[in-house]
């Protein structure tokens, strides 16, 4: 009668939490031409970014097949168990669709709930961490966890900035931020996610320090002194992430911090030099 938490590799969860909280992560696929890799299984961030820098070929990504989900469902659950799968926004990927097809196949012995988180990366990751913590409590039901997830979805905030909108545009994930394309002034966009898609939140002129302050300022306005779970994450710019972390620590009430790096799948779409911050009330 156990509750099992499953997510996908776009959650960018640090390995420590995957292990500690017994979270199952289903890998998405990365394609470099005809070569296919499973994210976090046979390709990792370091190798991936190396290739991204050194090869002319830009990678594509694809959702896990329904069959891969089926295998995982069968391997982790016993009859009577409940699997709660929390996945990347369906506006960005068909992953939840594959999970759902697999859930409806004959051969599953347990109950399977599928939740479209409406987010990606550690915004999805923080929700998964909270859900996995809750699932450890024997007295909690699946319905309670799902209700809680719906609350967290309303409370979470994500702000990030990219070096170029080109990557998001190339793979069709730019969402409403397309209005920022083609600006002749040197503008750093601050993006967010709303209703499952990327939206422009702010346009900032100035250096990354300025951008970082604006991102934190937005969180201060939203949360005041509420104790927060915070994640600062980046693609290969730890020094910038450190600046952002510093500003966040000075201005926000951080109860728990989950630094992470952007994984290969999200990195394929966000491109290099991405940095962002995610906040979710700790309680």
């Amino acid at each position, binding site marked *: 009668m156990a509750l099992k938490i499953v997510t996908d590799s776009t959650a960018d969860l640090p390995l420590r939490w995957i292990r500690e909280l017994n979270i199952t992560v289903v890998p998405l696929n990365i394609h470099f031409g005809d070569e296919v890799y499973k994210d976090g299984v046979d390709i990792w961030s370091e190798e991936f970014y190396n290739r991204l820098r050194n090869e002319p070929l830009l990678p594509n990504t694809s959702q896990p097949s329904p069959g891969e989900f089926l295998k995982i469902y069968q391997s982790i659950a016993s009859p009577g168990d409940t699997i709660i799968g929390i996945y990347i926004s369906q506006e960005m990927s068909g992953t939840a669709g594959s999970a759902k097809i697999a859930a409806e196949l004959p051969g599953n012995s347990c109950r399977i709930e599928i939740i479209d988180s409406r987010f990606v990366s550690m915004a999805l990751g923080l929700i998964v961490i909270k859900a996995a913590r809750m699932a450890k409590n024997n007295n909690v039901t699946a319905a309670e966890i799902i209700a809680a997830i719906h609350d967290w979805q309303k409370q979470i905030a994500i702000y990030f900035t990219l070096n170029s909108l080109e990557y998001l545009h190339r793979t069709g994930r730019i969402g409403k931020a397309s209005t920022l394309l083609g600006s002749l002034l040197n503008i750093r966009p601050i993006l967010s996610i709303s209703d499952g898609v990327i939206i422009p939140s702010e*346009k900032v002129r100035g*250096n990354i320090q300025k951008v970082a302050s604006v991102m934190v300022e937005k969180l201060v306005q939203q949360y005041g002194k509420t104790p927060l779970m915070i994640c600062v994450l980046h693609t290969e710019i730890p020094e910038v992430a450190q600046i952002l972390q510093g500003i966040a620590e000075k201005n926000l009430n951080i109860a728990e911090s989950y630094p992470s790096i952007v994984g290969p799948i999200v990195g394929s779409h966000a491109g290099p030099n991405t940095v962002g911050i995610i906040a979710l009330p700790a309680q």
Partner: protein
Amino acid sequence: MQLGAINGSMLKQLMASGTASLFAHKSEVDTLNVFPVPDGDTGTNMYLTFQSALREATQNSSDQVNDILEAAAYGALMGARGNSGVIVSQFFRGFVKALPKGLKHISKVEIEKGLNGASTLCFQAVRQPVEGTILTVIKEIAKFATENLSQKTSLDLYIQDIYQHANQVLAQTPEMLPVLKKAGVVDAGAQGLVYYFKGIIQHLNGEAIPTEIENSTQKVTSVAPYIDDDLLDEGEINFQYCTEFILKGKQLDLDYIKNSLSPHGDCLLVVGDENNSKIHLHTNNPGIILDFAVRLGDLSEIQIHNMVEQSQQRQAKMLMESSTNRQIGIVAVTAGDGLERIFRSLGVQSVVNGGQTMNPSIEDLTKAVSAIPSSKVIILPNNSNIIMTANHVHELTPKEVKVIPTQSIPEGLAAMMNFSDDNSLDVNVERMIEKSSTVITGEVTYAVRAFHFNEQPIKQGDNIGLVNGEIVACDESPELVVEKVLKSIPAANSGLISLYYGHEVTAMTAQDLLNKLEASFPQAEIELYYGGQPLYYYLLSVE
């Protein structure tokens, strides 16, 4: 040939033939891929999925068609790649689910049942089914199969007719899905499925399947144009001319051609055979390419497009399109081609030419407001003498008009930083006013009459500098004035300085000034833009 029914081993052969046919065309299908995201992998994804289905089906030793199709469905499910792959997996599963158990043969009835079952499940698998895709083809052939089931045709003719119908629906996909029409292609997933069916038909007709499309000349001319040129226009274009032609010759060595051309550009494509090949390349010197090719054979269907020009046209069109969908329109008053472009790139739809010595009339502004489709319009006067005029525009138009009292160009640009069409008009006005008041404006121009500044006489034509409208500096050259102006603004030491140079300043002079300023203000961030404005050598802002 007259086909009565399809048994298990025939079914496997048909699946092998369909998969081989798709393999032969997979690169072509990849280039068609514009929907839902143009990542150019539909052909590959579908092929890998069909291949996985075939592998499982072939390994299944049962003589029952259900078992073989179940195995194929399982294989597709395991190997499904991408959206199109998931749909293929549901196609197999829906097909077999609709059949009665223990079947040894498939005849017309089973095909009809199977296709309808496939159609139902495929539509369920997609969260928001879109017409003009592989789903439409599946749905329409299922319908066609039902409508023609009672015709007294043989099984193979029945299948042929279904295939013909699939082709017709495929050809209509651009009419159903605008993004396809815009790119001039049929839907990639639909095309992939039709190629799979084509392989089945070829097998039924006893024809051989070409193993590689590169050996099939008649296909060469129908290779889709490189879609990335048309849809991904924001990137830097390193090679300006898209060059395409057909080369007819004898014993053409395609590898030699590839190797010879690849240093001259990117996106190189050489397909065809030793007599007939299609060459596509982005290059900065089409002459060299044609000169090389003409030595190898005859050239035909030569096409050269300037992609920079195309990209500019597309951007203009994109701006037009985005402006027609906007809730809130924006009119800005400015002078100079550079500043006009900058304002437009930030989302201003209508620019009224004007400024210090040419104040636009109420009529000019009203016309600009009327020309914008939106019923709510924000005006950026960008000059203190124009604010009052702008305030009267609302009396002459039924539209809701708000004025952000921007007194300078930099204030107007700053205001645009806080514009978002997702916010209400009132929220935008509030945020834009707030933002515009945070910049300090500097102007460097010349005196239009003689006067005294700090008891120092200024002659007509002397270079003077102003900060927020007050004279703070004069000097021999506009560049020296810029430096003095910046030194009078404490925030310049660590802030963001934007410099817009005017019509009378050369790019080189402006660049020299930038270098100098970077040395004198090491803590500041300085950005230089071409403004093209008259009267003002430089406009600048500090924020």
